């Protein structure tokens, strides 16, 4: 069970949270003007990185705020959490084969 640092409440157990997938993937401003391919990219495609991943979580059984987390998807090491709209912390990014 992960120990996740909610930027509002502090470190809490994983089962208080829900996952929201890849972060920093803004909804297209004017969806009607983009191609089917670009739209499919937004709705379905994932970086799905093996390594340092920027992702969204919500503290659903806590403060109910969404926030971002930088986590290594192989080792589960957590490099930091930051609020929506804030810039991510500087992280030595890693990827693996």
């Amino acid at each position: 069970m992960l120990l996740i640092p909610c930027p509002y409440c502090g470190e809490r157990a994983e089962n208080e949270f829900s996952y929201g997938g890849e972060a920093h993937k803004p909804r297209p401003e004017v969806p009607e003007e983009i191609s089917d391919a670009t739209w499919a990219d937004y709705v379905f495609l994932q970086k799905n990185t093996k390594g340092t991943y920027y992702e969204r979580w919500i503290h659903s059984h806590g403060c109910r705020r969404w926030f971002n987390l930088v986590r290594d998807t192989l080792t589960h090491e957590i490099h930091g959490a930051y609020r929506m709209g804030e810039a991510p912390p500087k992280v030595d990014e890693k990827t693996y084969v």
Partner: protein
Amino acid sequence: MKARYSIFSLARNALSSHENWPQAWRSPEPKKEYDVVIVGGGGHGLVTAYYLAKEHGITNVAVIEKGWLGGGNTGRNTTIVRSNYMWDESAALYEHSLKLWENMTKELNFNVMFSQRGVLNLAHTLNEVRITKRRIHANRLNGIDSEWVEPEQVKEWVPIIDLRGNGRYPVLGGSLQRRGGTARHDAVAWGYARAADALGVDIIQQCAVEGFDIEDGRVTGVRTSKGAIKAKKVGVVVAGHAGVLANMAGFKLPINSRPLQALVSEPVKPCVHCVVMAGAVHAYISQSDKGELVIGAGTDAYNSYAQWGSNPVTEDTLAAICELYPLFRRMRMMRQWGGVVDTCPDASPIISTTPVKGLYFNCGWGTGGFKATPGSGHIFADTVANDRPHPIAEPFSLERFKTGFLIDEHAAAGVAH
């Protein structure tokens, strides 16, 4: 060439203290160039190589495996095989596969212990009943065996089950596919490896693909931990790692990689004689021929490439097992592990050409691709050989995420083991 396996060869070899058995496959050094390189030595990759050689006459093929062959999800799944999927497209795919299963042991001269002991999918809510019946009727009209069983019949199949489910998850019935069952997962990988090797396929283990050589939008080879290897075509079949390989080739996939857990109990005398799946509570159970209860749990809620699972998921699954089978509360878990599955938004696989010419992907099988192993490899080989989707593969292209032609098996499958 290969020695044929039989009771006679076994007896003959017993006389020479088993010292004369040949290797099941070679361990060759990679050549400089192949007609086709298959990345990923799991079941799907090995079957693909086998059929390239067998049906398409392409024998200059390498299967490149990062670790040991069969060590991915092929080696860590709960081995449920069935074909009673809901949509026509899926049913065609999985039924194609099931037919190949039925002949696999003979075809490979390798006993994969395919055991058609029957697969029961329980329905616990009125909505599940409705969806289950819809699937059964669809199966029936597609010519696939599938039948509704009433709770009393469930009890006959699984005498140890508690039908009341404490009022919360009562067993309201279920679907039964008699031709479904289990197989010895490792044997599937080994059997195909041996057969492909016999046809000249090089199986190269402990060799990771670390990049692609792409010229003018066409793949020309792979870069591996053992050096560059040229290839006219490359088929990628790496399950949970599909996204990693796609990133190497410069595109993204509609896939999230998540650990899926399984566990086994200590071995006991046979007490569960078919496969029982309960999607509503996330618990799948069968008993291996050695006596362990093999139990499938859920996927972790977050992306991860760690081959282990999160604690609450195990708790949930074992709570459900205790609930459905109160007499198993005293059983003990002997080993627990995880595999990284490639889940697609519509719970259906991708068998497809890609934005890179000569590069093909077969992935997205998520929690349920073991059953598809022979069929998937068969149609993927055809797709790679002919540079166009096999008719069964056609609906499962990457295009569907653009056009919207999703084949959403969620409703019918719960978790699609």
